[in-house]
């Protein structure tokens, strides 16, 4: 593992740690209104380290709460897409023939639909602001690429002699998928999932920016950026704080994913 990858891991660890510990670090909660400090800039003497918004809510507390939402949605949605994608892709690639063709055409069709609309429609089916609905919606489109990657890997594994050897040993098809195919596609899957997390976080922020995601009084990095953008000429920190947090998070995940991909690929050599 390279120094860069390790650095990214440390940054993510610190961010996640601070985000989780924020309720104990700061006297303010994400929804307490401080009437004395409306729209005050960052400073130590006020206790609002990253400033407050127009309603006097502490930006550190809100930012960290938004980070918890982003991490939760990113990681859970990635998990959902890994589970569906691996099961779908491995089955299609291993079974082959008509079943494979039918399963992959289904993926093609869903891919062809404008997926923002799908997420918007899905998120309206659930009560507004439901985080569960959000990650199911995001995960449901995230698995398509995963299924294609896993199917491709499975097709090449299918021709390897150790799979033939397992068939000849009397191993059942589900057991071959679980014991031989899935562990051998784990490398690319982990790498792609890690690279997928920042995309999913970005997607969630985008939905929240549009007002379709996390609802008040809770915040998401996207909704904070949306609010901050309205005030950016008078109080730039309201935009810079959530935008900065989002950037650091995304860069760290991308570096980690890239590093994992390189490590896992060289291990497969």
């Amino acid at each position, binding site marked *: 593992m390279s120094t860069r990858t390790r650095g990214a891991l440390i940054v993510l660890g610190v961010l996640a740690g601070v985000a989780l510990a924020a309720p104990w670090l700061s006297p303010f909660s994400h929804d307490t209104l401080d009437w004395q400090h409306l729209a005050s800039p960052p400073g130590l003497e006020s206790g609002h380290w990253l400033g407050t918004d127009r309603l006097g809510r502490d930006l550190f507390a809100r930012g960290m709460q938004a980070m918890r939402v982003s991490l939760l949605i990113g990681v859970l949605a990635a998990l959902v897409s890994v589970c569906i994608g691996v099961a779908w892709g491995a089955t299609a690639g291993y079974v082959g023939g008509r079943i494979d063709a039918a399963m992959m055409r289904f993926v093609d069709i869903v891919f062809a639909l404008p997926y923002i609309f799908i997420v918007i429609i899905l998120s309206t089916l659930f009560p507004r602001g439901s985080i569960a609905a959000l990650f199911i919606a995001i995960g449901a489109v995230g698995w398509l690429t995963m299924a294609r990657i896993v199917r491709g890997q499975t097709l090449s594994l299918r021709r390897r*002699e150790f799979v033939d050897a397992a068939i000849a040993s009397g191993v059942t098809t589900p057991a071959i998928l679980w014991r031989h195919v899935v562990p051998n596609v784990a490398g690319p899957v982990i790498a792609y999932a890690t690279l997928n997390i920042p995309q999913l976080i970005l997607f969630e922020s985008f939905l929240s920016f549009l007002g379709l995601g996390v609802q008040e009084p809770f915040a998401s990095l996207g909704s904070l950026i949306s609010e901050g953008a309205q005030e950016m000429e008078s109080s730039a920190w309201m935009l810079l704080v959530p935008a900065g947090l989002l950037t650091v998070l995304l860069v760290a995940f991308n570096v980690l994913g890239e590093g994992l991909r390189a490590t896992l690929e060289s291990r497969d050599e």
Partner: protein
Amino acid sequence: MSEPALLAVQSLSVAYRGQPVVDGVTFEIAPRRCLGVIGESGAGNTQVFMALMGLLPPQARMTGAAQLAGAALLESASQVRGRSVAMIFQDPMTSLTPHLRVGDQIAEPLVAHRGMSWQTARARAAQLLEQVRMSDAPRRLRQYPHELSGGMRQRAMIAMALACDPKLLIADEPTTALDVSVQAQLLKLLRDLIQERGMALALVTHDMGVIAALADDVLVMRQGKVLEHAPVQRILTAPSHEYTRALLAATPRLEASGPVPLAVPRAATAPLTARNVSVRHRLRGGWLGRSRWLAAVDDVSFEVRAGEALGVVGESGCGKSTLTRALLRLGPASSGEIVWLGRAVQDLGGEELRRLRDGMQVVFQDPFASLDPRMRIADIIAEPLRALRPGLAAAERSEKVLRMLESVGLGAEYAGRRGRELSGGQCQRVAIARAMILEPKLLVCDEAVSALDVSIQAQILELLDGLKREHGTSIVFVSHNLAVVRRLCERVMVMYLGKVVEAGETPAVFEAPRHPYTRMLLAAVPQLDPARERARLDALDVRGETPSALDRPSGCQFRNRCPAAQPLCATTSPGTEDSGDSHQVACLRWRELTN
């Protein structure tokens, strides 16, 4: 001998991170002579010549000196490479660039090193292809590597190496990946080329037969050190080093005696019987969608008795692997019947088929590819038990696995390792252990020892022989190596383009072959006696290569390579006849040819 040495190497050493892989190697090669450098994997014989060509990776540390025609070589290897010294490698597919036409690849060094125009360089390439006896040379120039057969690709590689008239040709396992008949043709070509062009040849190999055919002097290497350096006659007849003797003893020979055919079948009925098995693949042609049928295996019948090994031999593309896949139900059989212990295998499906696997197991050619890289050795060997003996307690299972590990000569300490930490021979033993753990009645070995060094090959053959004798296991042994088949198999079946051309008891078939193809295969096997081997190459009448299964000749499929073909052979396809001396043959003229 009086000519001054072309290449002189003095105490050459190569080390990686302080670990020596070549240790103080000294030798000379004179023009028109061939130095054979023999060694098993890890011997360092390839490293010596990579060092001379300047092809070692940057972390290698090299000491010593080498002169080519009097000029220091090690310091200027990159300028000399491709001009005075050229190299050919084992795998002709990966050494040719797939997207360039063969002619352009041969012409390229001429343009680069000689400053020729592309037009003259292409004309020269055509000449070179003629010189390496490439059939139909002008057409080959415009073809891509994948359109050529393995033997033709290796010829193209040799033509490329000869392009700039090198003084020294280094050949690293030049014929290892090729069929015996093609190997014999290439050995003859290399021998003629060094005489015609006055080149010196350095031949890196693990195969004593290749050494006997070409080398004048031999260097025997092990673990980076030269153990013995002597003329070929002495190495092969009176080696002084113990390792050379062990290597010679482990090399299977055609003339050696093999197992005696079972006089009386141990069981009244053969456990495995195949009747008229065919495997056809459908090929979709062009965009008019006319599909053709390709018969990879065509009307093959045989039986294997208990405790007996059946050898299946033939060149690549003869359908022997497709046949084993059909036997194991890893691939389909289009027609015919395979009966295993009284049940027709091809009709079984699902759970019944899975149960059937209990008695028949398989060992594949590539020992690394047949082990799951992510699993521990113990889990790999336990897999058939998990699948087919679900009632077995975990403790009992691991005890069985450990006993199995012992019996293939690997200790309990290997249980926790993974495939990549083991050598090829150790991996193959793991594969055999996996196949044996259910104590199957039938073991199918698809080129199971081909990728192994001879000393390990001998151990594995010993192991298989023991299974056969002690447990009464039947073995179907697919191999292109006739000497190995002679060593292990009671009966043998020779296949050509999907059909059985000759079958019978191994001694009868090998000592009195009836079919011209069997004769050609047997004549192509190198022998370990330099004098006889050279006479054999002179007399060699091996023609062409196996044609593609898509354009087979009419009548007898072998007729276009057969020295005894007559007009009749083009119109009539031969049926299988019993030739009386315990074997069957499919040739129209076998009676005349015997006399």
